[in-house]
């Protein structure tokens, strides 16, 4: 409810500067040059043109709309534009599920705060299950355990900026370095998600983890990386190692506790020791996914603190 209110308030605030700009253009003498009346009727002298200029600029639509031919053309153009937009939306939805993505960005400040605290200190949290609502998972706004894409996306961008800052303190910064850092971190992320997908396929785990869920879980390590690098920048190398160690252990515990409920069978998830090759394989899979996170965290940040 308040989300839409703040959104419309933001839109109103954004409209006002635009309107101010447009009126200032009309008042200036350059307005006549920018909004030249080209409908063919205004072939008068220059002074008349300048006087009619502000008027024509103030109401540019009137002279255009009075001509029925251009009226038809404008109607046709707008219908074509809406048709094209529909087609783009439909085709884009086939490749990138936009409606599913919206679920992952339905967050609010309280959720983000709690989740960040959980990523750094997951030891006190007891209930790690995602609550459902009539067979669909509840939006992240209402459940701390649900994965979201807001924190990974923001964490990725912040990581690139902090990496640029860290490289700047080593006098190695140049603008294209930011792009290189971004693309290589992105490549590692994609490779990690593909590796996890492949191993999930090979172990034939019946789980409801989607690709976007895996992307979200892999993106949570950026928070720990940022904490480590910032601590290293502020307080030196020992602080970097200490905070990175703390965040690595925290992410390890977080991933194990989250993935345990999704990958393992019911009995094993509750903590009882269940024998059997399949469960053992699944346990190894969970462990290796969780162990890959600290490795990546160290690999992506060690060259930033020299």
């Amino acid at each position, binding site marked *: 409810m308040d989300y839409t209110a703040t959104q419309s308030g933001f839109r109103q605030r954004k409209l006002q500067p635009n309107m101010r700009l447009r009126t200032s253009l009309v008042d200036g003498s350059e307005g006549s040059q920018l909004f030249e009346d080209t409908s063919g009727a205004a072939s008068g002298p220059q002074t008349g043109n300048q006087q009619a200029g502000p008027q024509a600029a103030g109401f540019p639509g009137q002279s255009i709309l009075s001509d029925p031919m251009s009226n038809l053309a404008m109607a046709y153009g707008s219908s074509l534009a809406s048709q094209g937009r529909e087609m783009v939306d439909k085709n884009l939805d086939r490749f990138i599920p936009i409606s599913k993505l919206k679920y992952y960005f339905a967050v609010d400040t309280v959720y983000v705060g709690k989740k960040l605290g959980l990523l750094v200190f997951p030891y006190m949290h007891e209930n790690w299950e995602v609550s459902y609502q009539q067979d669909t998972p509840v939006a992240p706004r209402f459940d701390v355990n649900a994965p979201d894409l807001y924190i990974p996306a923001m964490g990725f961008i912040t990581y690139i900026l902090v990496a640029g800052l860290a490289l700047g303190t080593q006098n190695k910064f140049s603008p294209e370095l930011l792009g290189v850092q971004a*693309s*290589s971190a*992105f*490549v590692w992320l994609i*490779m990690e998600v593909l590796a996890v997908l492949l191993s999930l396929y*090979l172990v*034939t785990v019946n789980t409801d983890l989607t690709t976007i869920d895996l992307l979200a879980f892999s993106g949570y390590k950026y928070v720990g990386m940022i904490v480590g690098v910032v601590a290293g920048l502020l307080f030196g190398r020992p602080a970097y190692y200490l905070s990175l160690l703390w965040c690595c252990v925290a992410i390890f515990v977080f991933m194990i506790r989250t993935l345990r409920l999704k990958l393992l069978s019911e009995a094993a998830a509750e903590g009882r020791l269940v024998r059997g090759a*399949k469960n053992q394989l699944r346990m190894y899979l969970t462990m290796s996914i969780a162990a890959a996170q600290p490795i990546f965290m160290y690999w992506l940040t060690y060259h930033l603190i020299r």
Partner: protein
Amino acid sequence: MELKSFYMAFTLYSLIQTAILCTNAIAVLHEERFLSKFGWGVDHGVGGFGDDPGIKAQILTLIRSVRTVMRVPLIIVNSACIVLLLLFG
């Protein structure tokens, strides 16, 4: 500095190259001439219909499906790569 330049060589373009090379490598594994010699042929893959196909059966299914599905797109992508590399080096 040498370590850093090795690290920084990963771009999206290299990811595409890696994907094409890996897919080519999987598509080249021939059933009769090569995989049967290792006991990984078409008769060893599909075992039981139980709920647990096992890792070997999954890998064999993956190889066969990659070979079937990606045959034509790989031809197109490889030809495009060859032409681009010949033209632009």
